[in-house]
């Protein structure tokens, strides 16, 4: 294929690739850079990518004045709990659909998947009333229960896709050896699915970490509010503190990006095998 390319085409491809790179990385690099710049430099009228002078003022503001670490802690608790619950419930369901004799399993899968397309705004009102009645407003529990259901469709779908690639002979052999159904899942299928579990876990984590609507509705103070709500409320009385926002953005996004880049191959494979299968 390479031989058939004219120099012009090659240039076009590299130019296109460069554009994609700038598109994807540019805005965040800019955001990262302004988190180290003084407010004065931001409004000077001559923007620069290199922070000069370099300052940690915005990080100080974000953590000391705005108590960013408390939002981070809330988000960590909620997201980690969601991740483990999603993996647990999702792997049970995916295992049953893939390995056990379930009638109409593709129908069930389609229903599970279509649930993820429900407009969340249609869920938030009734769930808010339920949470009020059960005294679950301003609790981690309300968020975790909701996020479990939000993450579950994708987790089940991707894990199902992965389980389907494991050879059936394993099941037969295990059954010969008298392994019970839960034993098959716990001792054989799950250990073989570790890469897929890591990817799907990451997807569930990102879903919970980034969720805004339910967190906004269900929590009203810093004791339980998660990062997106915290950052959305980052305003000062007289002006928008863009530098502080940039610093907070960097703090909550950089770890996520590092994780995603580290697992990128698995993520793309996992999502696309689940998303679109010929």
């Amino acid at each position, binding site marked *: 294929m390479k031989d058939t390319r004219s120099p012009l085409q090659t240039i076009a491809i590299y130019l296109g690739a460069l554009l994609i790179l700038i598109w994807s990385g540019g805005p965040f690099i800019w955001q990262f850079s302004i988190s180290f710049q003084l407010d004065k430099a931001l409004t000077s009228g001559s923007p620069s990518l290199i922070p000069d002078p370099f300052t940690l003022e915005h990080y100080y503001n974000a953590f000391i004045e705005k108590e960013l670490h408390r939002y981070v802690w809330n988000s960590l608790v909620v997201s980690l709990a969601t991740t483990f619950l999603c993996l647990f419930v999702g792997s049970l369901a995916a295992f049953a659909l893939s390995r056990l*004799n379930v009638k109409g399993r593709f129908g069930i899968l389609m229903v599970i998947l279509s649930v993820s397309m429900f407009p969340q705004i249609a869920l938030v009102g009734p769930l808010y009333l339920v949470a009020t009645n059960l005294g679950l407003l301003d609790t981690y529990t309300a968020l975790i229960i909701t996020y479990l259901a939000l993450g579950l469709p994708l987790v089940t779908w991707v894990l199902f896709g992965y389980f389907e690639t494991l050879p059936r002979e394993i099941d037969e052999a295990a059954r010969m050896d008298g392994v019970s159904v839960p034993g098959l899942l716990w001792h054989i299928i799950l250990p073989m699915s570790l890469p897929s579990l890591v990817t799907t876990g990451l997807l569930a984590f990102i879903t919970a970490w980034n969720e805004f609507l339910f967190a906004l509705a269900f929590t009203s103070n810093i004791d339980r509010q998660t990062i997106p709500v915290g950052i959305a409320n980052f305003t000062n009385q007289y002006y928008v503190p863009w530098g502080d926002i940039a610093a907070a953005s960097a703090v909550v*996004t950089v770890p996520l990006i590092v994780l995603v880049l580290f697992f990128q191959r698995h993520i793309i494979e996992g999502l696309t095998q689940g998303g679109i299968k010929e």
Partner: protein
Amino acid sequence: MTAAATVPGIGRPRLGKALPGTVWALLLLTPAFVSLASVSFYPIVNGLYLSLTNTSLITQENEFSGFSNYVQLWGDAQFWNAWWHTMWFTFASTVLETVIGLGMALILCEAFKGRGLVRAAMLVPWAMPTVVTSKMFGWLFDGQNGIINYILLHAGLIDQNVNWYGSPDTAMTTIIIADVWKTTPFMALLLLTGLQTVPNSLIEAARMDGAKGWITFWYIRLPLLMPTLLIAGLFRALDAFRVFDLVYVLTGGGPADSTETLSTLSYKVLFSTLQFGYGSAVSTAMFVTEGIIALAFCLYLIRQIRRAQ
């Protein structure tokens, strides 16, 4: 293992002695069903009921009121304003993301140095919290000190600073740009996997026959990619239709309601005026619209597949 495989049936009686497979399946599926039923299905049904009542958390009323909410909705200019904005946003962002995403996927399909790096970088917008994206675009498109204005001004494309999301004329465009930025790379990655399933031998054969690049694209790659393109487009459209975070954080629906969407409108009716009955009517109407979009898409998809056969 091999011995066992040659004598099928020997292990059979042992399997699931205590519980038959079907019971196990039901048992294992129960947690997922309970979760989805209580957090997704129940609220939809309950919302439908609430929309037929005058429930309000302020007046503490919750009496059945028939279709009066829907009658009110039909004559509510704010609702139709939000409805059109949502449709426009869904249409514009889906089309742009699919077309630009296809362009990106075609580039990534070629072999070049640093392809892995580009592919990895494309996950950055996807992984970033939407609230962060929203705030980031708030600064990029700032009316006074935004870098976009600075670049456009210095490139001579505009004469004076544009008040992007601060003006009713350009606010929706800004939000569409932000959404396209965030979602297109991921769309491209989905389409890329679709493109990679197109057999290379077909393209090679066409090239042998002297077909130019864009002809192989138009007559071979695009038709074969069509199902992927439509399904990805459908999922994107359904997702775009629900847009909330981006609008709520960047403009809050303003200025002058010029970016109000169905999600932000129902959120305000629900949680600012606490009219849960009327708010549920808005979100139910939204659910119905989304269902119609999905149905239309599916019918089109089926017709396309039938025609291909």
